[in-house]
């Protein structure tokens, strides 16, 4: 991520200079920063709502019931998580919300799943294998009906907008399955996480 962050910014500045758009690039810093805060603030309410609902689902045993039903699949995908981890139920619910196109519910529940996985993570700064698998699932964006796209097609007078549903579903399934397979393969080739000892340097001065 350090290199990607560096590259994005260096390329922007160099390309901006070549294209004579350097002032636009500088302005983009301000608008981008503003947009980030807007995005985060617009999440607060809906995030609170779904975290509240999910807490009830968890306490009533619904999340662990879903987790139990999906155990045969999730045991393979998330083999480092304990079988009774609420993360598994959360992942299932986030996936279902995504598939139905309920992005407002999918993001908060997905974040909840991440928080549960973080509890089992041995190195709190680096992504565990389960997190990488879950991220692969989420970025592939599996969706049954691309509602926004269909709305735009209807808007331009597309005669049969539903004809894009089948190809979209086929493509999203291919991307989704390959994302999971690639994540599982990489898991074996990437160096495993190491347990980091708690940071004691801050207390050092007091001794």
């Amino acid at each position, binding site marked *: 991520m350090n290199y990607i962050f560096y590259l994005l910014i260096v390329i*922007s500045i160099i390309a901006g200079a070549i294209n004579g758009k350097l002032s636009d690039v500088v302005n983009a810093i301000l608008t981008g920063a503003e947009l980030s805060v807007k995005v*985060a603030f617009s999440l607060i309410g809906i995030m609170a709502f779904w975290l509240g609902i999910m807490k009830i689902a968890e306490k009533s045993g619904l999340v662990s019931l879903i987790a139990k039903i999906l155990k045969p699949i999730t045991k393979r995908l998330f083999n480092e998580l304990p079988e009774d981890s609420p993360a598994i139920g959360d992942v299932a619910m986030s996936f279902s919300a995504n598939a139905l196109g*309920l992005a407002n519910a999918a993001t908060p529940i997905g974040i909840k799943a991440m928080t549960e996985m973080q509890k089992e993570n041995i190195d709190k700064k680096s992504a565990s294998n389960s997190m*990488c698998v879950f991220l692969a699932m989420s970025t592939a964006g599996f969706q049954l009906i691309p509602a926004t796209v269909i709305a*735009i097609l209807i808007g331009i007078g*597309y005669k049969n907008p539903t004809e894009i549903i089948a190809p979209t579903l086929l493509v999203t399934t291919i991307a989704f399955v390959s994302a999971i397979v690639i994540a599982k393969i990489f898991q074996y080739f990437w160096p495993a996480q190491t347990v980091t000892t708690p940071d004691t340097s801050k207390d050092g001065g007091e001794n």
Partner: protein
Amino acid sequence: MFQSVMNIISLWALPVIILLILTMGLAKKVPIYEVFTEGAKDGFKISVGIIPYLVAIIVAISMLRASGVIEMTGTVLAPVLNYFHIPVDTIPIMIVRSLSGSAALGVFSDIAHTLGPDAYATKLAAVMLGSSETTFYVLAVYFGAVGITKLRYAIIVGLLADIIGIVAAVSVSHWLFA
């Protein structure tokens, strides 16, 4: 038929899920109001907590879009894509798709309105947009919420899946629409 069934499911999914969770909570004697507010408390903390990660990603991507480098990449890629019979108009959508959801949607509207409903580029762009998610946004939000800064192979997997998605979209659309 399939679409009307899906519309009904989309409409009823949320109300049914919420009702089911609340009813099951009461049935299991969970103090639902108390538990709801207890869970909701973290909403503010998590949302505000992802701001630094969002700022890093969104500012970098806004700068990239403003710099005109995406158009430059398009010009460079054009001959290659011509060779594979991929319409040049879909290049911006391929590049922007993983970076910014709103930008990709804007590019798609633009293609749809200028080229019209019968163009192959419109159909291909529709399939590309509908079949993927904004990788960088998901990455920033999900990992930001738990304070993960070492992403290990997560980003490579996300981008590889996007590339596979583009290849699949081109093949499937070519087979069905071209």
